């Protein structure tokens, strides 16, 4: 059994999870074990999809060719890998889908995005897949900013982002745009051209309060647009950029989630930032963000 610290939780895992930070502790919050997982799903599912089912406190996930997972009570992940599945692929779904599911069950607010330290707080960059969230996080990291999380920004009851683990994931195309030598990086799975970009420094291990959320977007024009999102308008993007919002219905947590979103919305500033889609001008994007944060009096 290995002991890790990630997302503010003490995790005991039978499977090795090399991208997480090893840390000794006595009391575990989450157990990850190998075991038998039903081939057919849950006994009384509330929401059914072909490969994923939810019931209050339970999530069943089947990734064909890789593994079946049973995630329950916000503290247990049972994994049954396919015989010929590679460990890398199994791990990837544990750290993504399964941890996302655990966080939902623990009633954390899980935003699909990254979290970057600015002063004594952090800023989340959220947006649809393909809007350049990870590329932006990696570029900010290269500029010396500390990163708390890539992909899943987990917000606890105190509205702090809990640090995830010191690794970003970049498609080859993005890695090359950032000037990284992919020969020096490992693929996250051999089957795809996406790479693990380890953060050897600049991974922020401290939970920090969320100060602002930027929703990344793009359009066909040449201009950058920064539009404040005010009042009740903050709620739809928070809901839409929640990690797999459909799970909440099956888990019976929609009302709780709405409450969390409302609390967060009342405490933070939100801005929609729209960049030209035909050219990913990272420097201009960062410049615009830094200026906007400066105008909001957030020190870097």
């Amino acid at each position: 059994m290995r002991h890790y610290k990630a997302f503010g939780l003490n995790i005991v895992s039978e499977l090795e999870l090399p991208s997480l930070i090893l840390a000794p502790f006595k009391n575990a919050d989450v157990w990850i074990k190998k075991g038998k997982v039903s081939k057919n799903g849950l006994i009384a599912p509330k929401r059914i999809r072909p490969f994923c089912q939810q019931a209050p406190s339970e999530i069943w996930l089947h990734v064909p060719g890789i593994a079946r997972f049973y995630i329950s009570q916000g503290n247990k992940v049972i994994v049954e890998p396919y015989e010929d599945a590679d460990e890398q692929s199994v791990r990837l779904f544990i750290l993504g889908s399964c941890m996302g599911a655990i966080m939902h069950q623990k009633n954390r607010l899980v935003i699909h995005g990254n979290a970057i330290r600015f002063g004594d707080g952090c800023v989340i960059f959220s947006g649809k897949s393909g809007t350049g969230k990870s590329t932006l996080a990696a570029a900010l990291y290269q500029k010396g900013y500390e990163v708390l999380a890539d992909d899943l920004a987990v917000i606890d009851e105190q509205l702090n982002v809990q640090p995830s683990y010191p690794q970003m994931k970049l498609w080859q195309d993005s890695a090359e745009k950032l000037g990284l030598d992919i020969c020096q990086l490992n693929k996250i799975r051999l089957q795809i051209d996406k790479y693990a970009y380890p953060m050897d420094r600049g991974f922020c291990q401290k939970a920090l309060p969320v100060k602002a959320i930027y929703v990344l977007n793009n359009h066909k024009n040449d201009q950058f647009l920064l539009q404040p999102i005010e009042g009740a308008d903050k709620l739809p993007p928070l809901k839409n950029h929640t990690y797999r919002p459909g799970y909440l219905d099956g888990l019976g947590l929609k009302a709780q989630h709405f409450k969390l979103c409302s609390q967060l919305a009342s405490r933070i500033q939100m801005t929609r930032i729209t960049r030209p889609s035909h050219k990913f001008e990272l420097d201009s994007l960062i410049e615009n963000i830094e200026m906007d944060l400066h105008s909001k009096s957030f020190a870097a």
Partner: protein
Amino acid sequence: MSKLNPKIYWLASYPRSGNTWVRAFIFNLLNNKQKDFDMDDLDTGPIASCRKWIEDALGFDISELSHNEIDLLRPTAYRWLSENMSQNGYHKVHDAYSTLSNNSHLFPVEATRGALYIIRNPLDVAVSLAYFTGDSIEKVIMDMGNTDTSACENPRKFHKQLRQSFSSWSQHVLSWVSASNISNLVVRYEDLKFRSVEKFSEIASFLQLPTDEVLIKNALAQCRIDKLQTQELSRPFKECPQSTTRFFRKGVIGDWLDVLNNKQVEAIVNDHRNVMEAFGYLDSAGKPYTTFDTQELKFDSAYC
């Protein structure tokens, strides 16, 4: 039709063959409004390769699966989507009708209510596609002749759409029109242009849509290409790619006569002779028709 009552009508075509026009017609037929059609409202449901549509149906993140792994999951997603649709859906598709490595059909019969296939003269497709993609005519001709041609396939980056395997232009046509296990209707773009009311009525009937002639004519009037072009001048069409500023470029028949040189025409005819012949794009001497009196375009239904 199977007992499962499948709900998905596939609106299939090789790219740049009139698919969006047909979708605009369907949309207007379903939403018989007095006000002018705004192309930004166009919505007949997601394209078959829409990543989000598939991912939401499957219920888990597929962004870290390979193209081949995702393809094996797509039939399950379509089956689930079809089972959970409250009414028939009309979904554009540019993939060829293919069989996967596990021998299942990419577009399963249990999900497929029918397939409308739109075929367009490959000489005009080549011209339109070159403008659309920004590629040279030569490159487009090569792609149309290559059975490995696909879109969104670059494995080094994220794509909002899943990989779409087109195959060659000929194989694309044959894959759909010879899919014997699903009900299909094949229409030529040229017939849609020249015999609009008759052909769009056929389409409406096949897709179980209203067939009243007044409604058909109204829907057609709403999506006349000159109207769509005027709208596009003031703001870009939401589905228009970065490679061009004009989605609704010309839509004319025979544009190839002004654009393609003899060598290019010859290359396309050589690559696609059999299918072009079967669908009436070549005369009895094997030369492409240069006049477009529809009476002369004989439709060979042997493939259907």
